[in-house]
């Protein structure tokens, strides 16, 4: 049996090492310029990685599978749609008058309400098959993005312009104005996730056994969906949608920990995500001199992995 504390310790050291490397690599004496800028980047990567990992592990536990992630089920597409609708219906003048922080909170609240209502409906009593969920996710995701691009098309070009600058953040253009509030929301989300850890453990046994063991299923499901929506808002606001990172780190975490305990799995998945993001970004910037391709690479690797998992699952 592997000792979780050893694993967590080793991963923490690796993550800290990667962060130190990222901060100091090729600074060439311009410390006062490079360090604060890079520190902000590292902080954003930590926040994004943790949010994605924790939301994915929770989502996989409540849907009882290891293939679906909030992203695949269209959570972040829904975020983009809601953000677009706000500008679309309020008009760019009104929307521009709303400070970015308030705007972010409005979007996060909208996503929490919409996603929780929608997915309570989709998940039902927790007995839908995997393929039904995959199908619903693909359809929902496509529907949300089509609706978004429809709005883009009929929108005033000025409104479209103001939206683009806030919506399509990426790893190279991390929206750091929101870093503070994102960190606070992340802390809230993680706190709730660990607090609900024992309930999540019981949910691994399935809905019926969880009910038999005294879990209030509907209430717990609602709380967990709220946490997921909160965390998806955080990561999408900072760097935009990344489809497959959660899938990769969650599955890698299960492989490494070989336990159902969420206190362990949540921590390991979060550390893996942070490590992957920081190391990936460092390599891209300093070794490959690429720009803006981290999410492309994550999606390539993750997408291939996703297909492998689907094939493996269908052979069972």
């Amino acid at each position, binding site marked *: 049996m592997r000792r979780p504390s050893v694993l967590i310790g080793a991963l923490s050291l690796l993550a800290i090492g990667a962060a130190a490397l990222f901060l100091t690599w090729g600074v060439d004496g311009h410390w006062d310029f490079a360090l604060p800028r890079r520190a902000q980047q590292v902080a954003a990567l930590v926040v994004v990685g943790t949010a994605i990992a924790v939301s994915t592990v929770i989502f996989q536990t409540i849907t009882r599978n290891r293939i679906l992630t909030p992203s695949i089920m269209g959570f972040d597409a829904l975020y983009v749609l809601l953000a677009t609708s706000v500008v679309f219906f309020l008009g760019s003048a009104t929307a521009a008058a709303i400070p970015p922080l308030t705007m972010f909170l409005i979007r996060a609240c909208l996503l929490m309400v919409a996603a929780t209502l929608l997915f309570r409906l989709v998940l039902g009593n927790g007995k839908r098959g995997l393929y039904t969920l995959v199908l619903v996710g693909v359809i929902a995701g496509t529907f949300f993005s089509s609706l978004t691009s429809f709005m883009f098309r009929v929108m005033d070009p000025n409104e479209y312009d103001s939206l683009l600058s806030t919506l399509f953040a990426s790893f190279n253009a991390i929206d750091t104005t929101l870093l503070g509030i994102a960190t606070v929301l992340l802390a809230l989300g993680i706190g709730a996730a660990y607090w609900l850890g024992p309930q999540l453990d019981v949910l691994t046994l399935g809905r019926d056994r969880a*009910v038999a063991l005294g879990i*209030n299923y509907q209430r717990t499901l609602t709380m967990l969906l709220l946490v997921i929506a909160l965390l998806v808002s955080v990561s999408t606001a900072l760097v935009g949608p990344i489809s497959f990172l959660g899938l990769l780190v969650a599955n890698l975490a299960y492989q490494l920990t070989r336990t159902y305990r969420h206190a362990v799995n949540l921590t390991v998945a979060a550390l893996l995500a942070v490590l992957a993001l920081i190391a990936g970004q460092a390599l891209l910037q300093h070794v490959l001199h690429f720009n803006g391709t981290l999410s492309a690479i994550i999606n390539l690797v993750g997408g291939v992995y996703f297909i492998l998992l689907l094939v493996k699952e269908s052979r069972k």
Partner: protein
Amino acid sequence: MITTSDLTKVYDKTVVVDHVSVSLPDAGVTSVIGANGAGKSTLLSMISRILDADAGLVAVDGLDVFNAPSREIAKRLSILRQETHMTARITVREVVEFGRYPHSRGRLTAECVHKVDEAIAYCDLGEFEQRGIHELSGGQRQRAFIAMVLAQDTRYVLLDEPLNNLDMPHATSVMKLLRRLADDHGKSIVLVLHDINYASVYSDRIVAMKDGVIAADGPPESVMNADTLESIYGMRFSVIDLDGDRIAAYFR
């Protein structure tokens, strides 16, 4: 005591359980029998609040199961259903520890550890304790989940077809274990059975269901006769007395 009053479940206009009012005792073994689709499992699922009722009430020691705090119900009533696939890696001991969740919410006390040890020993699972649940045979896995229900330590233990997929030695050992549980620990065991002879030999009371209603209810002596069984299953039986047990044959 568990009492149901006018408990009803309807699926797409088909009434699966039809205004069932029944009381289940504080102790002993009660078997629920009946043909496929008679509503046995549905009844058990509603009593254990896993399934919502369309009408009617269930009270466990006076607590309304659909509205009382789920945790309070889980301290009084446990249910074992037909197993479902699990992807997570869980050892036998961890499964049994889950039974303590209503009492400890994931933080095992010394009493919990004691109850878990006891349940593992009772179900003869000592040598598999650290094995993953997915590595076990069907019979061993079934015993692990029974041990989990034991660790939950509730007065009422409901089991939905616990003998499913078990061979004869395993089925008999499960029935003996349930009988001992009722006799030694004074628990009330309620189980859905397909094999009427196990019901006859091990039960204090048999509740027979047909088309969503209770067709017969009483000690094995009163239910296990050719006419009653025919009215329940719609086929011929011959019932013989075998060393004091009533055994029904239905093979020809």
